[in-house]
């Protein structure tokens, strides 16, 4: 039998070694002898070594005649495997960390109706329930208090002859709500606000510091 085909002894040694390298990481993991990143690196190391054992003893790697094209291609493939798996994980991890929803992202997500990206909820609502109406007439918001549930909507209508700009928070310290900084209303215009955050929030017409009110959102 040619040298590159190996002997029965090779197969037996490879089999026994593989058994060992399978059982050790199994017991380490199942009995919680190691946990977390240390466990992950350990079991991965055992897997890589066992792959090497099988390549050596079952596939007789390295015993081919020169030039060793098969070994060469395998090494390049191993490099490719590394780039694909580690590269993908690295890029996507950074992506998810950087692109986690912020106020602006929340507004964009709400505009598109995207409730979840990957495993993270954006906080946007993908469907709305009750529609409440707040009409601003003669500088007064009516009703000035709304009790709503999460993912309801409020439609602000401007019935006055002047433009208004609904902002949230105190008149001198506006804050964004649900990613929305403000809702400009020309005379006669209406705009909708989706209530995707719980809690109480006050609103006011930022242009004139009038027409105040608040809404309470419960889950």
């Amino acid at each position, binding site marked *: 039998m040619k040298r590159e085909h190996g002997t029965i002894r090779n197969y037996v040694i490879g089999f026994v070694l593989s058994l060992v390298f399978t059982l050790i990481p199994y017991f380490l993991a199942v009995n919680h002898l190691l946990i977390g990143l240390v466990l992950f690196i350990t079991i991965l190391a055992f897997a890589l070594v066992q792959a090497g054992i099988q390549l050596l003893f*079952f596939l007789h790697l390295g015993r081919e005649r020169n030039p060793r*094209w098969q070994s060469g291609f395998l090494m390049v493939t191993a490099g490719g495997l590394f780039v694909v798996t580690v590269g993908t994980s690295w890029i996507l991890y950074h992506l998810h960390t950087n692109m986690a929803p912020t106020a602006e992202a929340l507004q964009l997500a709400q505009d598109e109706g995207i409730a979840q990206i*990957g495993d993270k909820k954006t906080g946007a609502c993908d469907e709305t329930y009750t529609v409440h109406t707040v009409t601003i007439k003669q500088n007064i918001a009516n009703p000035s208090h709304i009790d709503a549930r999460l993912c309801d909507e409020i439609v602000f209508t401007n019935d006055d002859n002047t433009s208004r700009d609904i902002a949230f928070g105190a008149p001198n310290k506006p804050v964004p709500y649900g990613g929305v900084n403000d809702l400009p209303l020309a005379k006669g215009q209406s705009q909708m606000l989706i209530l995707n955050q719980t809690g109480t929030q006050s609103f006011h017409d930022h242009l004139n510091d009038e027409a105040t009110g608040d809404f309470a959102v419960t889950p």
Partner: protein
Amino acid sequence: MAEALTPHQAHEEAANERATFGFWVYLMTDLLMFSILFAAYSVLHGNTLGGASPRQLFSQPVALTETLILLTSSFTNGIGMYRAREGKKNQMLVWFGITFLLGLSFLGLEIREFTKFFHEGHTLTSSGFLSSFFVLVGTHGLHITSGLLWMGTTLGFVMARGLTPGLVRKLSLLSLFWHFLDIVWIFIFTIVYLQALV
């Protein structure tokens, strides 16, 4: 040290070498295809959407059993191949037969695991985690199935035609394929099943 080969033998030898090398390159492409599935699993395995997590879902003893069965079948496959090169047809049939049965049991265990998950409501379409799990492990299972089909037909032809050089070559390629499926399984066992405990 080797006697000079006749032109016909040299021709066969060269053909064997090309077939082995070509199949090896194909196996490299298969590994790279699996790498995408592993990459998808790495990224998506946390997306359980509040459903079952890997730790809750997987039975480690079953995974270990599957691993040991496949490892043993890789070993018996190697012995069978050794006998085939020696020209010992009957011994080779026995060892490959054992490999076939082990492969079938592996597949059986895996199908049982999948159907159990399905009946409990954890399907392909339930979440990103489950989609990537079923596709990664399922693709490996499909490869095992193809290998068994290949094994069955080749052994059938051996019984009909005897152990011709062409059939020995086919068995050696199948052998490569089977060993490689076990190597891929090592990583599935580690990155899918054992990683659930990390």
